[in-house]
């Protein structure tokens, strides 16, 4: 699943939030979108998920325009939002079924795929619990399992570890990397936490609406004459270490 953003600019009223952002996502790889709060990450996600309408530029999924083929694009994209998007009063399974139905899956198919994902995410025992009873880490896992139910090729995660403790954060990050390998899934993981990024990840650094770097973490460090990503990020954005 390849993805390309071409010359994306976006503004809220007269305030520019994204300025001529272009990048490509390579099929089956983990990409980290790194940027401080307010860099424009969520706006970029809004555009990629069609919650925001494109103003200028083009987004292409496997060469097809998101604007022209929205249905096809949404079939191929799984999303985990920064804010909780689960029904807290419904059970884990009910949440999965709702999502499956929205993608046109029959109840039988939803049950089959739901069971598979629940097993993969070690959630079988919690399947009939209301989401409200789950801790933050488990809720996030449910959201990722849900995002994968319709078997997308591209998984977008907008600061998925927000509000989680250090252990859960690392666990979730590892889990998604494993999925990436197992399923040949293309992943875009937005974060402002450098410890979630590894040197051989593809890294996109977004700052004040501009894409300042795009490449393998190690190569970006070398370009900037730095030894680690934290210093590179600091040098590029002038931000403190996260």
């Amino acid at each position, binding site marked *: 699943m390849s993805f390309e953003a071409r010359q994306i600019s976006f503004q809220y009223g007269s305030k520019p939030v994204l300025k001529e952002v272009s990048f490509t996502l390579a099929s089956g790889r983990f990409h980290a979108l790194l940027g401080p709060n307010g860099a*424009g990450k969520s*706006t970029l996600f809004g555009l990629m998920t069609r919650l925001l309408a494109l103003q200028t530029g083009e987004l292409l999924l496997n060469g097809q325009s998101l604007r022209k083929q929205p249905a096809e694009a*949404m079939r191929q994209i799984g999303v985990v939002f920064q804010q909780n998007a689960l029904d807290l*009063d419904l059970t884990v399974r*009910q949440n999965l079924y709702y999502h499956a139905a929205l993608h*046109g899956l029959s109840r039988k198919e939803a049950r089959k795929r739901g069971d598979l994902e629940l097993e993969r995410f070690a959630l079988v025992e919690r399947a009939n619990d209301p989401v409200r009873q789950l801790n933050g880490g488990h809720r996030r896992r449910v959201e990722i399992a849900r995002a994968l139910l319709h078997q997308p090729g591209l998984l977008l995660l907008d600061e998925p570890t927000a509000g989680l403790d250090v252990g859960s954060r690392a666990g979730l990050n590892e889990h998604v990397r494993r999925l990436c390998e197992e399923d040949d899934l293309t992943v875009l993981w937005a974060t402002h936490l450098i410890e979630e990024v590894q040197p051989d990840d593809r890294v996109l650094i977004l700052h004040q609406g501009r894409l300042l770097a795009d490449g393998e973490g190690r190569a970006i460090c070398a370009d900037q004459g730095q030894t680690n990503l934290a210093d590179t990020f600091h040098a590029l954005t002038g931000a403190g270490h996260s």
Partner: protein
Amino acid sequence: MTLAQYWHCFVGIQVREWLRFWQQRTRFFSALVRPLLWLVVFAAGFRAVLGVSIIPPYDTYITYETYIAPGLCGMIILFNSMQGALSMVYDRELGSMRVLLMSPLPRPFLLVTKLLAMGMVSMAQVYLFLLIARLLDVEPPDWGYLAVLPALLLTSLMLGALGLLIATWIKQLENFAGVMNFVIFPMFFLSSALYPLWRMKEASPWLYWICQFNPFTHAVEAIRFALYLQWNPQAFGITVLVAVVLAVLATAGFRPQRTRILSSGGKAG
């Protein structure tokens, strides 16, 4: 997308609405208190003041309770629709709306299905209200309960679409108090829900005409006539027309960025 996929989606949205209804059943019952208070207290007080002559669809003198029952059915839907629409774009339903909008099916279909699902729950409330009203001697013909169903569904769609349109486009009305003062109360009081329009005409021709232009008047009349097994093509026709126009406007003009769906702060970073 195939027809079967649309169907699974439609059913899934309905099921979720009923599951939520079941989770929040105390709210469902407490929302019935409002129309019942009107029926029991307000109507008792006003029965003496307002004489209602024989007007269609009634073929005899009726009590004031009988007169206002259809209007109160409309009121239940009015409150629910506005509250539902606001929660879709501002609070409780934000998470579910994000998920909804990630569906590959066309947005107008998703939104209309969602409005209809909310409407179904409203209708359950209306039927429960009518059942209690029956115990209080508001007794429409038995088949009336079935005949009124399309009118109730249309009213739900019309008011849900209006709510969505308002919630999306009028920033000043993003809280329920604002909607209550500027939408619900004017629509309710400037309609035939509480008093027949000929009485309004006697009081003020201006107000009468405002009532005539209020689509809620026609929705209430469509409900009233259907409940008494009479066909009122004008009221029904206007309700259908307004429901369709509002549904098209609300769904075609829906912009998530004008809501809090993208991020709870309204604008994303």
